[in-house]
């Protein structure tokens, strides 16, 4: 059995009187492609942001490799090896593809000297090249984000997270804005990443992608845990059917 990489334990998040996420728990093992699904307003993005460190949980813990990282900011989680992408593809619009990846490489080093170096190390340069190749963006390295199509933008966004060689990659709606044929290409890309040792946690509305790529899924609705299990078992779960279809 592989090691538990991420453990979410009774996580809750309230905004004033609104309880957006209520006592959600699940564990992600190293090598998993783990899905978190739920209807609109289920609290997926809030849960995701609490795991990523953008917001602090009101209660409950997030463990990464056995350590409690619940109160760590996003940048500290990145330095530990947790990468993330956003619902809408994020990049630095005034930079080319290659410069975006280089900007990502300059980010996480924390030593005093790292602030004042003017060049990337050989390893970092090699990593940028490797990500360009991995994402298929080598030919587009001098293009600006505005000149990329949706799939290329998604790959750039994921590529920026990959530059820092995360062990765990959190993907927020990776198929958002993609047409069916592009979703197929994205799926192959994500499976390739997973084969290279990156554990993936994804939130997505596109059931065809989630059901075909994830080996384990947690379903939440109205901020609460509903069920979890293998994709095929969830398809036959009456609670899940009720959440999605409104009837059993």
């Amino acid at each position: 059995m592989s090691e538990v990489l991420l453990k979410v334990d009774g996580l809750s998040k309230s905004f004033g009187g609104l309880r957006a996420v209520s006592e959600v728990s699940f564990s992600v093992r190293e090598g998993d492609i783990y899905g978190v699904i739920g209807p609109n307003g289920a609290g997926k993005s809030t849960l995701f942001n609490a795991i990523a460190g953008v917001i602090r949980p009101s209660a409950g813990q997030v463990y990464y490799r056995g350590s409690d990282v619940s109160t760590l900011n996003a940048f500290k989680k990145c330095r530990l090896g947790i990468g993330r992408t956003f619902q809408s593809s994020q990049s630095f619009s005034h930079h080319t593809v290659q410069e975006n990846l280089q900007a990502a490489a300059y980010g996480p080093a924390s030593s005093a000297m790292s602030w004042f170096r003017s060049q990337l190390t050989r390893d970092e340069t090699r990593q940028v090249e490797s990500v360009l190749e991995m994402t298929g963006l080598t030919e587009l390295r001098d293009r600006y984000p505005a000149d990329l199509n949706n799939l290329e933008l998604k790959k750039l966004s994921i590529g920026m997270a990959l530059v820092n060689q995360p062990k765990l990659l959190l993907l927020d709606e990776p198929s958002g804005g993609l047409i069916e044929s592009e979703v197929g290409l994205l799926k192959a890309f994500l499976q390739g990443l997973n084969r290279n040792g990156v554990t993936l946690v994804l939130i997505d509305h596109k059931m065809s992608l989630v059901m075909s790529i994830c080996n384990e899924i947690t379903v939440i609705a109205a901020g609460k845990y509903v069920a979890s299990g293998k994709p095929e078992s969830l398809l036959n779960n009456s609670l899940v059917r009720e959440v999605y279809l409104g009837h059993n």
Partner: protein
Amino acid sequence: MERKSLWVWLIVFFALVPLFSGSDYHLQLATQLLIFVILFIGVDIAVGHAGLVSVAHGALFGVGAYATAILTVDHGLNFWLSIPVGIALAAIFGLLIGILTLKLAGHYFVIATMAFALLIHTAAKNLPITHGELGITNISKPGVLGLFSGNQALSFYFLMAIATLVVVVVYFWLMRSAFGRRLRAIRDNPLLADALGIDISTAKLLAFVASASIAAFAGSFHAVFLTYINPAVTGYELGFTALMALIIGGRTTLGGIIVGAFIFAILPEMLRDAEQYRLVIMGAILIVVVQRAPAGIYGKLVDWAGLIRKRRP
């Protein structure tokens, strides 16, 4: 950032200024321009690169000026030794202002920096150490100036040119380093910068401290240049002037900073005969630039130069 040829042209231009006119008046104008260039470089690190719209830098410039004036006049300290003291003081002020205000968003941050500027200004007006409203007179120029055949204006001009060159080199080095890249990443997309492992709080704090230090460095030279300072030197008007200069000249480029310094150091002198229209003209320039040249006058000039280059056969 800019091409190396700009450096060469700038160095040649500023080295030749004394040949265009040997008059003390013109040399003093050029010296004032260089003091502004240093101040605006400091402000540009915070405003242009880090996106921290501060109006406290006029007061931090005043901290450097007062440190030099008090230490050299009242305590007989050497000018060169007063500079690091001024820088350290401004850095401490910058650190304090940064710690207390950097979490504030948008206009709240601007207002908070204005409040700190007013605090420093009020202290300068009322503390015995600053000689209150009377200010400090007889601030003597540094001792190395005899080197230039007794011409004080020429000597001080060259001294400022060297000091400016040092600051420009430091500015380019800092802004081309990971520090500058991180600042621009935070300015352009803070959410993404955070997710990519950039420590936003530390980066902003360092930017504020570095920019405060450079502003104080300019202030030290300002004190010995004028030989007299009073609390007006800490007024937030200078902070606003620096902001306007960067907007009009162009942020994050040395060319833009020099254009801004030219407009605020030289143009008022050129408009001396039309003093009553000076602010109207400045206001009109600001409105036209904001509407027609969001990257500033220098940015527009670069765009035009690019177009001309493209049209050449």
